[in-house]
């Protein structure tokens, strides 16, 4: 399986590189400009936080408001806490990031996805849940945060052991 390279690989990469460097430069300013999507670096800080609100602030720098344009699909009762199929779709446009939070997990932030333009704003994944908890999906669209929450019951802890 070879990787085909298109005619101007270097030019595009340089352009892209310059753009992301600029973003990174801005990224670590304390008040990242609203448009900066979750910065490219792995949001280590946000993943370490226990509490959901703190994790959202660390990741996006502001709070989200519920919106019915964000459709979160999760089971009533998880068949097993270790493999909970959760997905989100949205009709919002200019979506730049989607993240999932499980409030009662040791760390609230479970997964965060960067959605470049041209990618359909929707993700399906399988998460672990320590116990019954609210699952929240947050969509960052055009610089603003929209969320949807659903309670998922778990009786067999999903974290093994």
């Amino acid at each position, binding site marked *: 399986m070879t990787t085909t390279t298109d005619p101007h690989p270097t030019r595009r990469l340089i352009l892209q590189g310059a753009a992301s460097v600029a973003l990174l430069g801005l990224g670590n300013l304390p008040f990242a400009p609203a448009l900066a999507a979750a910065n490219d670096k792995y949001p280590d800080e946000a993943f370490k936080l226990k509490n959901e609100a703190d994790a959202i602030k660390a990741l996006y720098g502001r709070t989200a408001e519920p919106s019915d344009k964000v459709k979160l699909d999760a*089971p*009533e*009762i*998880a*068949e*097993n*806490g*270790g*493999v909970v*199929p959760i997905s989100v779709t949205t009709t919002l446009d200019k979506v730049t990031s989607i993240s999932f939070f499980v409030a009662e997990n040791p760390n609230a932030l479970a997964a965060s996805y960067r959605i470049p333009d041209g990618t359909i704003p929707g993700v*399906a994944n*399988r998460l672990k849940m320590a116990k019954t908890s609210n699952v929240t999906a947050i969509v960052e669209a055009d610089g603003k945060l929209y969320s949807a929450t659903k309670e998922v019951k*778990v*009786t*067999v802890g999903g974290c*093994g052991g």
Partner: protein
Amino acid sequence: MKARTALLLGSLSAALVAFALTSPRVVAADKVDSVADAKAFQNFFFQKFPDVKHEDFVNGPYSMNADMKRQWQEKEEFPPYEFALDAGKEMFSTPFKNGKTYADCFPNGGIGIRQNYPYFDDKEGKVVTLELALNRCREANGEAPYSYVKDEMASLTAYMAFTSRGKLMDIKIPDDPRALAAFENGKRYFYTRRGQLNFSCASCHVQSPGERIRAEILAPALGILNAMPIYRSEWSGMGTTSRRFITCNSQTRAVPLEPQADEYRDVEYFLSYVANGLPISGPGARP
């Protein structure tokens, strides 16, 4: 009729205890009619769950609960047993040290034959299960046998089951009293209570399929082995039939027998025979 026999049997065993005699062979073994048993077994489930399609019984708990079925279908889009399947396929084509492969041990090269296992081996006079046949094939070719409860065996049986997907379970009981005895012994094991919790397989899988035991929905006994081997989220790994029997025993606090013990081979024979006509759906994904 059942209540009367239960009463009769209750008093019979009480009488037995009072005299504390070695129990005399009270009842001559009535003629075993496996065909009638299988029909009665299937009808019990068809009547108890009239709106479950017959072939859906092989999907275990997912035939009993819509919410669980949706989660299962989502998992099936890219199932977690995918890796075991690929590993099994690779192992199946990798020759042993002596150059032979599993295909040389099995009819039709081992492809599309899982629905005929377990079978009654008249030379040995015992039931031979797929897992046993695989290990015997390895030993016959100078290879060490695999553990019955670990991933290698699960990968092999996963691949063989996959090649039989959709084919109907087709277990034969030859006209041989030893085969009928093995079937009866399997049936006895299936209905015998064991362990400190005093459960038999039937206590859960006949009396209360569809109900919950903690988080899990109990699977109906009909077609319960058709999806073997299974990837269980709870084990976050593959499970062979042997592993499933052993863990069920310890959950009722009964000390498990050694894998592929006669009782396990016979109960697999019984459960597979009564599921004749239902499709093979292995390998399966389960909670």
